[in-house]
Each structure stands twice: as structure tokens, then as C-alpha cells.
């Protein structure tokens, strides 16, 4: 274990960790948006929307996220979409995790007892009111934990932008492995920072989940 080296390079890793955090937050926000839209589409009364939602989930979950990142970043310019690597990575990963979140959100909504919907509709609430006032508040509590699983995967997934040269944790570790030939030290340094982020977020989600159960 080369402590001197670790002390010399750790500021670069801290900076990279900040990029990983930014990537994670933006990806999560985009993913939640796509997930909410996807779930709405999949549960729509219009067959066309249901079909679009199903195709989105199937294609984006059925192909590797890395390929999706490559298509947008390297292939984008061919169809007039010119993005820098950070933007391309964030958008590709956000839309990717959105497909998983679509199923999480839809699953939570479906798991709310049908009787609730029927009762609310009988009481004269509109479809939208029923969803907003009766179903969603219950579903929201149930989706915290599974969305947490998606978010955990998403944080680790941000490493996939390293191959398109976004200077985040994995890219930084790879670069320093190349220049110092100390793979274990670099892995531990990057790994420690990933674990701090992941377990901190995990605790936050558990806390949220507990609170949602009490109320």
C-alpha cells in the first residue's frame, strides 16, 4: 500500500467524486421524469401511448446502457445531435434508468388495491382525481424502496461515461492506474468514494421509507 501516492492523488479523486455526484443527481432527475412519463404512457387509455411506453421499456431495458451512451455520443452527430460527453452521458443514462423506473412506478401504482379506485370512482371522483388523491399517495410510499434500488444501480452506472472520457471517478481511477501502475490503491480510493456516496444515499432512502411508513 503506497500511502504517499494516495495522499498525492486524492484531490483529483475528490474532484472526480463531485462530478460523479452531479452526474448521479442529474441522471436521477431525468430518470424519474422519464419513469413518470413512461408509467403514465403504459397506463394510458390510448392504445398508442401504451404501445409507445411498452416499446420504450423493452428496447431500453433490452440493450446495454453502454451501447446507448455510445449511440448518442458517437452516433448523435450523424443525425444532427452534437452534445459534449457530459451531456450525452447524462441524457443516455437518464433515459436508460427511466425505463427501469417506469416499471417500478407502474408496479407500485398497480399494487394499490383496485377497490380503492372503484370506491373513489363510485364517490364521483374523476379518473384524474382518483389517481391524484387516492392512488398516488399510497403508491408513492410503496415506490420509495424499489426506486432506491434503481438509484443505487444508477450511481454505479455513472461509471459508464468513463469510456467517453467524462472525468468522473472511474475515468480518474483508470487514468491513474495507467500512469502509476498501482491498480489496488486507485481502486480502493475510488471505491471508498463510491461507497460513501452509495451508502449515504442508501441511508437517506431508508430514512425516507421509514418516515413514509409512520405517517
Amino acid at each position, binding site marked *: 500500500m503506497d500511502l504517499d501516492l494516495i495522499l498525492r492523488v486524492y484531490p483529483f479523486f475528490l474532484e472526480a467524486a463531485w462530478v460523479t455526484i452531479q452526474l448521479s443527481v442529474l441522471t436521477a432527475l431525468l430518470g424519474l421524469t422519464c419513469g413518470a412519463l413512461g408509467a403514465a404512457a403504459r397506463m394510458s387509455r390510448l392504445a398508442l401511448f401504451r404501445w409507445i411506453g411498452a416499446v420504450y421499456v423493452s428496447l431500453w431495458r433490452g440493450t446495454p446502457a453502454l451501447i446507448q451512451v455510445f449511440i448518442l455520443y458517437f452516433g448523435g452527430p450523424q443525425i444532427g445531435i452534437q452534445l459534449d460527453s457530459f451531456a450525452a452521458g447524462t441524457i443516455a443514462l437518464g433515459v436508460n434508468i427511466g425505463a427501469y423506473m417506469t416499471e417500478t412506478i407502474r408496479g407500485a401504482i398497480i399494487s394499490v388495491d383496485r377497490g380503492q379506485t372503484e370506491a373513489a370512482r363510485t364517490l364521483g371522483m374523476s379518473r384524474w382525481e382518483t389517481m391524484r388523491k387516492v392512488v398516488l399517495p399510497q403508491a408513492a410510499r410503496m415506490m420509495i424502496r424499489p426506486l432506491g434500488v434503481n438509484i443505487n444501480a444508477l450511481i454505479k452506472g455513472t461509471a459508464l461515461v468513463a469510456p467517453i472520457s467524462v472525468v468522473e471517478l472511474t475515468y480518474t481511477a483508470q487514468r491513474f492506474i495507467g500512469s502509476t501502475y498501482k491498480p489496488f490503491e486507485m481502486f480502493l480510493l475510488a471505491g471508498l468514494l463510491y461507497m460513501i456516496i452509495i*451508502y449515504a444515499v442508501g441511508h437517506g432512502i431508508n430514512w425516507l421509507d421509514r418516515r413514509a411508513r409512520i405517517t
Partner: protein
Amino acid sequence: MGLDFSVVPSYFGVLLMGAGWTIAITICAGILSFFGGIVFAVIALYAHWALRLPVRGFAFLFMGTPLLLQLFLIYFGLIQIGIDLPAFVAGVIGLGLHFAVYNSELIQASILAVDKGQYEGARTLGLSRGQTLRRIVIPQAVRAVIPPMGNNMIALLKDSALVSVIGVMELTLAAQQAISRTYRPFEFYLAAAFCYYIVNLALEAGLRHLERRIAASR
């Protein structure tokens, strides 16, 4: 520069061979992750602490870090300690270990959920502790987690694209080779995505079939 898919068919063979390698990696790493998962689970639950603690620490580390980072560690780490493995082997080991950790978590929970009466019955019949685990408990525990382990296999297939980064020849790297000759990234990555999608559908169908058979044999 517009799109021109007419160049794709001439690289059909390259992509097909890449897909073959992707399937080979998925199968090898899948087998490794299956048996590795069982071994890790038994160690994490029953072994002496001197063995249990390192395995649990390893699991903690591997569940909290990205697969890509682990692949770099395994590929370059092995070289550093003087083991120069072919990229294919390093990739299979990396993917296999990563998913073994996830399978191990599933199997551990499943082992603990096996009815206590099963242990007692087997022990009463004169089976040793090891025999009870091997013949009675583990087969039941593993069978119960085939569906979630199947999901891990599907994730493994898609994550096998990551080993292209350490230079393993598979579908993603095959697409990259075609791209370096034709400068048509959109077309070839899309073609690769299509191949992954087909293999993914086939794997899903296979796993559903397996699940039905297991359900029927109960």
C-alpha cells in the same frame, strides 16, 4: 453526414462473431457466478470467521462499486502481481465475481428461509452437517432463487458489453472495429444494440421456460 445502413451487411460476419463471443462470455461468467454465488453464500453463513470476514468484506466492496472499476482492478491488478491473463479470461472472472456477489446475497436469504424442520429431519436421519447442507438445504435454496438469479443473468448479458473496454473481443468491440473502418458509429452501434436485443429476448424466453419447468416439478 446522414445515415447509410447499406454498409452494415458487409460486416454481418464480424458482428455475428462478436455476438457469438458475447454469448460465450455470458455463459462462462454465468456459470462462474452461479457456483461462485453458492460458495460465497455458504462461506458467508457457515465458515470460520477467518474466512467469513474477508468474503463479507469483498462482497461489501463489490456491491458498493461499479463493475467497470472492478474490471479495471482485475485486469490491471492481475498484471501487476505478475499474472498476465488473456483479456477474455480476465473479463469472465470480473463479470463472474461481480454477479457471484449478487447471487450470493439471494442464496443466503434463501438458505435462511429453508424450513428448520428440513435440517432437523436430515440430521435425525443421520446425515452429517455437510451432507445436510449439500443434499438437502442448498438444492432447495438455489431452486427457490432461480427466477431472481435469472434476472441477474439478463443483467450479466447486457453488462458483458463493459468488457470491451479492457479489450475483450465481443459484440461491442466488433462494432467498434467496423466503425473504425467505416466511420459510421450510429449504424453499427444500432446494429449491435439490435443483436443484444435479440439475444436478450432469447435468454428471457429460455429463463421463462426454465421457471415453468421448475414450477411444474414441485
